[in-house]
């Protein structure tokens, strides 16, 4: 966001205090602060993670967008960058990590695998896209997405943050936010929402 967008009061500010007074809305300043310091979870899944590391390194350098503070602990992270293939064996861990992240939190699906299973979609051990498990805010196509594409995706996320209003965001509503149920590793991956259907199928058989 440009500085002038942040500070466009619609009121006349007297000339002598123009340099030291800003008038803006809560939403703008709140979103400006959040969008300029998105801390990603340090978490690489597969090939896409290498491009994520390259994007963090000096040539592409996503610290230009305030994102260089990669957090190894989900408790300190704002954004989960799902950089690679989500396998069934990894699925419970990913959901658990997501649940451990404090609100506000965002999920970016980087690459074909995280977005929809990618080249491995048909396989027995792969979840076809991380959105089967947790809600996704931005999808970035590519296999792997180039650093430019990744940065474009991250800018899209910043634009999404700009549109949010403090009155409507889910983490300021009344009541507890429900955790995402963790899938179970059984004879195959079991999504908890499917358990009644699986039991019914058994009874019919």
């Amino acid at each position, binding site marked *: 966001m440009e500085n002038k967008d942040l500070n466009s009061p619609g009121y006349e500010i007297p000339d002598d205090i123009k340099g030291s007074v800003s008038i803006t809305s809560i939403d703008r300043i709140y979103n400006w602060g959040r969008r300029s310091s998105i801390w990603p979870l340090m978490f690489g899944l597969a090939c896409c993670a290498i491009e994520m590391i390259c994007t963090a*390194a000096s040539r592409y350098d996503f610290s230009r967008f305030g994102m260089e503070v990669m957090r190894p602990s989900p408790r300190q992270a704002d954004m989960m960058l799902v950089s690679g293939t989500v396998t069934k064996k990894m699925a419970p861990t990913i959901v658990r990590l997501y649940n451990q992240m404090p609100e506000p939190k965002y999920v970016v699906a980087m690459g074909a695998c995280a977005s929809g299973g990618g080249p491995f979609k048909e396989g027995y051990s792969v979840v076809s896209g991380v959105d089967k498990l947790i809600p996704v805010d931005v999808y970035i196509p590519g296999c792997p997405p180039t650093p430019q594409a990744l940065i474009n995706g991250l800018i899209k996320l910043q634009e999404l943050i700009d549109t949010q209003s403090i009155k409507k965001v889910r983490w300021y509503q009344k009541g507890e936010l429900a955790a995402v149920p963790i899938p179970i590793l059984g004879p195959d991956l079991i999504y908890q929402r499917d358990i009644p259907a699986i039991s019914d199928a058994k009874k019919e058989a």
Partner: protein
Amino acid sequence: MVTPAQAPTLDLVTRFPEGVVADEREGYEGYLVAADKLVEVATALRDEFGFDYLSSVSGVDYIAEEMLEVVYHAYKTIGGPGLVFKVQVARKKAEVPSLMDVYPGVDFQEREAWDLMGINFLGHPDLRRILLWEGFEGHPLRKDWKEAYYEADVKPFKSRWPEGNFFRSEEKATYQANVQYPDKFDPEKWVPEGEDALYGALAKYEDVDNTGLKTDHITINLGPQHPSTHGVFRIATILDGETIVSLKPVMGYLHRNHEKIGERNTYLQNMPFTDRLDYLSSMSNNFGYALAVEKLMNIEVPERAEYIRVIMAEMTRVQNHLFAIGMFLNDIGAFFTPSLYAIEERELVLDIFEIVSGSRMMCNYFRFGGLARDLPAGSLEMIKGLAFERLPRRVDEMDRFLSDNEILRSRCVGQGVLSAEDAIKYAAAGPMLRASGVPYDIRRADPYSIYDRFDFDVAVRYNGDIYDRYIIRMDEIRQSLRIIQQAVEQIPEGPIQTGKPQYQVRVPAGEAYGRVEGPKGELGFYVVSDGKPNPYRYHVRAPSFINLTAFGPMCTGLKIADVVAVLGSIDIVLGETDR
């Protein structure tokens, strides 16, 4: 070309008149060994014939013959061609004696064959699933096992062709997802298997206590989400204070059914999938797979293409080792600054990959009998600039700044030692083997492509500790640059493809094992063809996976903080470890 895997002086049939016969199927080689003789024959191979290095174990499901076959590839660490021997058992009673006592390097490979093929290795001390989880239903690489999204046995799928009636697999599958459950499965009554097997295996260690103090041992898990595990790798360990008494790697968190997909694809369709094995070194992976299939097809590669292949493979080694060094220093605490320097140089190599192949990482550049396209104008000059000017200086600079660092040395010298005998025993490969003092490099020991034309030294170090595994990568970068320098000077003009480029290659029936010295070690592709457009069996000998066999023994007795240093010095890539 790959040399034939048959030693001329060896006569295994005379030595073992009972229980060993030559494999006489058309296109096959090696020996068939009776299951009850296997351990005896393997012991003789190791002790009498000098095949001290068992590199690869592959299972094959010959469903029409109602039999499973286990294929072993053995080599001599003094060099020379290898030896193939096989065991055949009935599908219904798939039991093969384990070779753990003869070649402990088969540990993970036998577990993999059990997990994916359902071959029971009798006498294996810890036969658990390795890539999937305990409790998974079935053995997915068996030919009669079908996944939830199953469409047809082989590609291209008729349902999508030629009209291209594409549908989303989810629409057809029950539960709208890639899952399926056995008939009698009732999730409400079912008790999860959990990880008792893992912790049970972990707890089998000798409790030596020489302090006289009785202390509790604690179990610690590291990963699968941990910044120092290079991806989704998990380590389960038991500690006595800070000292490791038992350690087991847990993998499979990135198991992407590479081999099942590989058997469904056509030969050429597999090429881009090999990119995604060791995703740092896609060119080398292409190389290994192309060699295996070319060996089956029995075709030659034009001169110019051979040179370009070598240049690209060595560039891959350079950038892989740069990355490995950077990430290793990350692990021991020099957080990100050395990596930034390493990645800066790596980017320049990636630029070349992008120019020649169109992609930075997933190059998909090799074709059977040649390459996808010739070098574009100007790229050779870029390569020359890197190989003669920039990279040698930068590597020296990194070496000067990093290698004598006090902290680096005190954390690495003399720690995590792997002796030469152990390295061979555990089938360690690549820099890990050579840092332990075994000068085994396939480019010299069993030359493929045109490596016999270049003047270079096999990098070798003798202490086998973490420091040597770090410094040997610097040595190897320098040797690779030497090879590139010679290759760019000698490269001839000419075609880059034998015959016309084809989407559908004709591959005669038979088997082939193509192996290259990848940046991480011996990367082998075992391909079985039945003459159809798709490989019948496609198995990858993944160096990152097999190098981990020695990881547990190497860490025992070390402090917990050294585990990440040891792991970093092995240099694994999870895409290849878990496939």
